[in-house]
């Protein structure tokens, strides 16, 4: 039972790390909204927000303040407690995933080895799955508690979509796990540092995983739960003020964390491409290498965030039957085939 006995300085270190990561992901999510609007504008030959601050950089703060100062409306016929619980759950589950992502190699602070990962649990990937599967409830509870047919429909759509795509996502990851032989994200990154990124070995698995991540984040082309032109606004139709803000914001936090997961699993995490980290650490010190590693991870994340936005402003939404067709009839068999082929290859190589 000693494993849970918490050393005080360790606790402090973890608390600081948690605070740092949460505020960092909120900041990134804020500026992703700005990036989304800017990139959308550029792709449509417009200029995007440019009035609040230089280049419109204060726009996310203005948006956030606007949401805070709006009137909170709780519909009379709604279920009050669940109505409030919905957005809170959405936000909490969005943030929880960040716990198992290694944000960088170990650094040294005052002679202590500090890991830039909140919790290195040996079931890291499964933990992510568990939290993601909890994410459905934010949508479902909010949609149902609104007591509105459109919201309910959106909630059910969202839940069925997320459950369906979770299967293909898991199957595509199993192939990856056969190669790595571990579920801990930290060791997966360590393996990629020496043996090359997983995207080389699992291109199909990556593609399936990426598509499923889009579906899990409810991003276009899979944004059926909030399809504006079909369901008015989807599950957050009855929400106003910051509760709506939390729902919208959770989507961006989700995007950020998912990008981090994709970068960690398939693109080497904090691995700096074509650089030997151990030699670098000997030259410029451990902490500088860690900073560079984090920068590498962050640039990978930024690329995926850009991809999210890029796809959103290019591809139109799927119809519901097309969505289910893609999920069940295409992605799952593909992922199964990928899994089998990988298993055969792994066995053959190990023989």
């Amino acid at each position, binding site marked *: *039972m000693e*494993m*849970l*006995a*918490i050393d005080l300085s360790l606790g402090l270190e973890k608390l600081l790390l948690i605070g740092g990561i949460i505020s960092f992901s909120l900041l990134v999510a804020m500026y992703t909204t700005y990036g989304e609007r800017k990139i959308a504008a550029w792709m449509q030959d417009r200029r995007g927000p440019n009035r609040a601050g230089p280049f419109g950089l204060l726009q996310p703060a203005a948006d956030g303040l606007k949401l805070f100062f709006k009137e909170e409306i709780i519909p009379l016929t709604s279920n009050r407690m*669940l109505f409030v619980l919905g957005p809170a759950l959405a936000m909490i589950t969005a943030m929880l995933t960040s716990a198992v992502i290694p944000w960088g190699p170990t650094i040294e602070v005052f002679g202590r080895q500090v890991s830039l990962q909140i919790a290195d*649990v*040996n*079931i890291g990937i*499964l*933990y992510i*799955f*568990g939290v993601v*599967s*909890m994410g*459905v*409830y934010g949508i*479902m*509870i909010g949609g*149902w508690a609104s007591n509105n047919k459109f919201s*309910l429909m959106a*909630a*059910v759509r969202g*839940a*069925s979509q997320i*459950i369906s795509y*979770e299967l293909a996502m898991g199957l595509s990851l199993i192939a990856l796990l056969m190669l790595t032989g571990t*579920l801990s994200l930290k060791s997966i990154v360590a393996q990629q540092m020496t043996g090359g990124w997983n995207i080389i070995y699992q291109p199909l698995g990556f593609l399936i995983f990426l598509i499923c991540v889009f579906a899990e984040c409810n991003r276009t082309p899979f944004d059926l739960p909030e399809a504006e032109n079909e369901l008015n606004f989807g599950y957050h139709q009855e929400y106003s003020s910051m509760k709506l803000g939390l729902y919208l914001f959770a989507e961006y936090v989700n995007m950020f964390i998912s990008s981090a997961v994709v970068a960690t699993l398939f693109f080497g995490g904090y691995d700096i491409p074509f650089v030997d980290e151990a030699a670098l650490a000997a030259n410029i010190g451990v902490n500088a290498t860690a900073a560079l590693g984090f920068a590498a991870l962050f640039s990978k994340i930024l690329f995926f965030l850009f991809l999210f936005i890029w796809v959103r402003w290019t591809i139109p939404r799927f119809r519901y039957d097309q969505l289910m067709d893609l999920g069940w009839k295409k992605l799952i068999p593909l992922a199964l085939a990928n899994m089998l082929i990988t298993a055969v290859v792994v066995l053959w190589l190990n023989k």
Partner: protein
Amino acid sequence: MHITEILFWILTALALFSALMVVSSDNPVHSVLWLILVFMAITGHYILMNAQFLAIVNMIVYAGAIMVLFLFVIMFMNLNKDSEPQKSVWLRLAAVVSGGSLLLILVAALKDNGGYINSMKGEGSIGLIKNLGNTLFTEYVVPFEISSILFLSAMVGAVVLGKKESSTPAA
């Protein structure tokens, strides 16, 4: 008190309270949500037992997937007080008797099994994914495969049931 013990008691209280709320809630949707909380508490217990794989699978499968399907059905049925069927006194009596006997059996089974419970506390590493996988695929490989066949047949059955019957003969 040790921190694990504090966590244990908090989780136990949460699990029991939520379980009671599952039974006593008027609204079936609330019942399901309380049930999710029960599963969460049980997940916490698994983690305390160092059975991380079981914990997370419990969360993914039960709390994450099965309960969502439950919610699906219940949300669409729009159950309320008016549609609640009146149960007869005999039915209630039968329920009390069967529930009571289940409790009796559980108490009798667990009454003097201190050693067994102790073995579940902590240090055991059987719940870790590596050991669990090794055990499943060596000692219990036959039951494991049989249960997978069971799942396969269930899947086929679901597809057969779900398939649309062509009402008109193909022209």
